[in-house]
């Protein structure tokens, strides 16, 4: 191959892919319910920062961080995620320390830092399923919560009420004794703390 042909090929590929940019605009639309590790950037920033090194999962002492294969699309292949019903985050913040690119921000393990910076999602209670709302006192989710009375409080008959400071770690969903779970995390893909 001549040098000129080679350079032309590079330029041609670049141009044609620039033209195709518009068709790629509708990317990163999450179709599954999953959480990113605590302190992750918003979904688009996260995907552009994460180099898929796998160190967050290798550091997680709770083994809650798993990795996507192809089920969430090519763009999030090999990125870390958490399914809270299987194994939830204990907010140890070790994944942020170990992340080399800042896709998961390094945060101190301290309540106000966590409340200010972490927003994986927010728990919602399904009152039709929740035992406490059926008159059978339960309160397991309240006791599982690492931010008791800050993120969740209990009312009459241990009925759980999620407050706005819930960071979405998923320990309540993990601990719920109902099948299917009566409390679940709705992920916040923008991850903007209130």
């Amino acid at each position: 191959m001549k040098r000129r042909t080679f350079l032309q090929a590079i330029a041609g590929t670049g141009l044609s892919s620039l033209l195709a940019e518009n068709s790629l605009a509708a990317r990163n639309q999450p179709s599954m319910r999953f959480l990113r590790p605590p302190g992750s950037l918003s979904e688009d920033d996260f995907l552009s920062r994460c180099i898929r090194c796998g160190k967050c999962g290798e550091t997680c002492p709770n083994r809650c961080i798993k990795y996507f294969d192809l089920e969430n699309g090519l763009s999030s292949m090999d990125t870390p995620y958490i399914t809270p019903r299987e194994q939830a985050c204990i907010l140890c913040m070790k994944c942020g320390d170990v992340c080399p690119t800042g896709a998961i921000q390094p945060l101190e393990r301290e309540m106000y830092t966590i409340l200010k910076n972490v927003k994986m999602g927010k728990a919602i209670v399904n009152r039709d399923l929740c035992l406490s709302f059926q008159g059978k006192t339960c309160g397991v989710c309240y006791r599982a919560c690492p931010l008791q009375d800050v993120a969740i409080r209990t009312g009459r008959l241990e009925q759980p009420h999620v407050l706005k400071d819930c960071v979405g770690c998923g320990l309540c969903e993990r601990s719920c004794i109902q099948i299917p779970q009566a409390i679940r995390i709705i992920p916040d893909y923008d991850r903007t703390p209130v």
Partner: protein
Amino acid sequence: MSWMLIQRHLNKLRWFILSVIFGMLILIPFLHLYQTYEAAHAYDLLSPMEKTISDSMEWLTSPFIKDPETELNQLKGTTWSGTLFGLKLSDPLAVVGQVAAGKMIYLPFLLTALIPILLSIIFGRIFCGWICPATLLYELNDNLAAWLRRAGLPVSRHKFDQRLKYLVLVVGIIISMLTSTIAFAAMYPPAILGREIYYAIALSGFGAGMVFFILTLLFDLMVTRRGFCRYVCPGGALYSLLGRFRIFRIKRDVAQCNDCAKCNVVCQFGLDPLRDDFSQECNNCTACIAVCPTDALSFTINIKDQAFQGPGHLGHLHRKHQDKGE
């Protein structure tokens, strides 16, 4: 002379280092499992298999550390990006991909690639030859191809243009910029391999990356010798560019060369040591130094490759030439 003796055995040292790094990639997931067992404080609840892992890792690490939960965090990750005894190191390709995808520079991450970049500027594609975990498998794969060839099968005989990989690098950067995701992470064998070994040991099993890696092995075996490293690998392209003006080069001493061409046969990258052609592709694997019967090849400090010096003085071509001259 003693330096020459060391150089002749560098290939064995290289194989040792490659095996150690590959072994570490297997060991680190087990260490992580051990850490999680320790963190859970639930040794009694482990299954027999998990108990075996926990016991063996404890046996392995207890002489060196007291608190596995925190101290083992000094050893994490893969060659793509990892922590080696507290020192964070990343592949320069990861930095290039991340800068392209994020369209910004994150300085702490850039600094982690500094040592690999400096090493590549001095030694060229040293990562490819001495560190890359995929190299170990690719070289074993090449030995397999040699056996098949000896058995009479027409395997791995094609040749392409080595500059193809620079195109892959450029296209990878463009794709990273357009999709805002790091495309290299899905097509760079050392990154894939490190990840997949972790998946297989600590998580559910091999993922789609392993399929890609096996395809590259088959490509090397069937189509072309060390084809992925030579023609496709974007990391190899980046390291070649970084090592274009590398300081350490292998040089042929024309006075000692006898034109036996063993160096050309043994070079998996298809270079031409016999005609002084190492170029930026040489990964310093030192196989040619090890195989040379007359010690004509050795490392020298030089920024440029030697131009072709003519046939070796111990070879018959040179003698014939001289006879004609006289």
